[in-house]
């Protein structure tokens, strides 16, 4: 008979974790390039504990719930215009490549800066990689233009305002499987074990200079999920409570031979 509590408990633990995920999504409502997470539930059929208390025909297996995984929703976030020439919104597939002390990391946050050495860096100061390594600007460069395929050209130190040349092309990669990327915090993704990245061909890259990709979290969806989670949790709590009451009543009446 304890199974009622245990099945309820398995669901409650899963619901708590789902609320944790919803909380993280909502906390990152304004995080540039953020991708929301979803919890994937699975039925877990108990291999040993069988509900054969009452011997009604065949054994019936217990089924618990299991929060098997969190899946990242990789859908496109809305683009917001910022007017900064070093903000790059990434449309469609792909990730920018950044060089961190722990190796290459990937990001959808294209809000870049230039460091004291003139190199293109993220807000944390990690180098943004181009097709030929880090991208660097001269001090006299101005009028930085980034085309749709990521080619960066500048107006240099000349009076004619003619393009002075190219400063490289932003490297945009994608994993070889849909789930190749794993979140690493700081708006970065890291490659899952065994997965690989490949450069996207320039024709498949869709960059927008002066834009950033906002978080793809849909507040309405998250709020309705949150309500669902609280209601389910409360309902389970009351069912556990009723079960407890049932047991208490049973003990009281069965343990009293005079009644």
């Amino acid at each position, binding site marked *: 008979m304890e199974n009622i509590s245990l099945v309820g408990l398995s669901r409650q633990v899963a619901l708590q974790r789902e609320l944790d995920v919803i909380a993280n999504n909502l906390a990152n409502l304004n995080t540039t390039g953020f991708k929301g997470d979803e919890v994937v539930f699975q039925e877990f059929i108990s291999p040993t504990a069988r509900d054969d208390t009452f011997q009604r025909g065949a054994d019936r297996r217990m089924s618990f719930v299991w929060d098997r995984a969190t899946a990242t929703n990789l859908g496109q976030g809305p683009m917001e215009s910022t007017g900064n020439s070093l903000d790059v919104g990434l449309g469609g597939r792909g990730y920018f490549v950044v060089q961190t002390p722990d190796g290459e990391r990937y990001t959808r946050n294209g809000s870049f800066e230039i460091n004291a050495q003139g190199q293109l860096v993220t807000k944390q100061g990690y180098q943004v990689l181009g097709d030929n390594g880090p991208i660097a600007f001269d001090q006299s460069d101005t009028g930085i233009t980034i085309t749709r395929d990521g080619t960066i050209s500048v107006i240099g130190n000349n009076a004619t305002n003619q393009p002075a040349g190219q400063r490289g092309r932003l490297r945009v990669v994608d994993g070889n499987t849909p789930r190749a990327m794993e*979140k690493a*915090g700081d708006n970065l993704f890291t490659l899952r074990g065994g997965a690989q990245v490949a450069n996207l061909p320039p024709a498949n890259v869709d960059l927008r200079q002066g834009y950033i990709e906002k978080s793809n979290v849909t507040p309405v969806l998250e709020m309705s999920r949150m309500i669902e989670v609280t209601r389910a949790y409360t309902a389970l709590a009351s069912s556990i409570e009723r079960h407890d009451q049932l047991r208490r009543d049973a003990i009281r009446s069965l343990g009293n031979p005079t009644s």
Partner: protein
Amino acid sequence: MRALHTAATGMMAQELTVQVISNNIANMRTTGFKRQRAEFQDMLYDQQRRAGMQNSQQGNVLPVGIAIGSGVKPAATSRVMSQGNILPTEKDYDVAIRGEGYFRVQLPDGRTAYTRDGSFELNDQGQLVTVDGNLVDPGITIPTTARGVTINPSGTVQVTLQNQVAPQTVGTIQLSRFVNKAGLESIGDNLFLETAASGQPTTTAPNVDGMGSLLQKNLEQSNVTAVSEISDLIAAQRAYEMNARIISAADQMLQSTSQIMR
């Protein structure tokens, strides 16, 4: 419950957004002001079940794991360096920059600061100064006998002296620009300082080498647009509310559990 703390980081992030927005709105009428934007990053993920692990019973590999994030943290308040509207003022010493560049200003302690605020005045010695009295660098002195002053788009300052027909050049206003102007440090009073992130200034006359041109009798307004600030404010306020709802939801769940034991 992790959700309580996660939502708290979300609420703090929205508070920061509101602070930045309120400073933008407060400076809506500040000459040459550039609006700021708060930027955020997600925090570390707790890998509760790693993807790629062997699923012991069947020998399958888990395609996805459980990774639960722990909230949000501020990453930067970056400045949006777009051009502000240029408004005519009919004052001789009001100068707006159209395009790239900053005026150079000599601070009393000897440092050089940079500004887009070209509402200049003359001090008692006839020197061109900012409204705070800081000297414009390189220094420009207008003779007391000058009748009219013209500042042309290339920065040349010309005056016509009394009893003379031909205008005389008294100096040239120079501009400085930075490879990463978003990396300049704001020190208030519409002034910026050079930092390691901004790089060193390139200084030339206006209108050459990609530098902006000057516009006399005009001032650059702030680039704050009321409509977008207010809509950002509404978005931040609603996001704050939603994070607060998570806290009450988590509280309600904990309460329903604790009430079982009476």
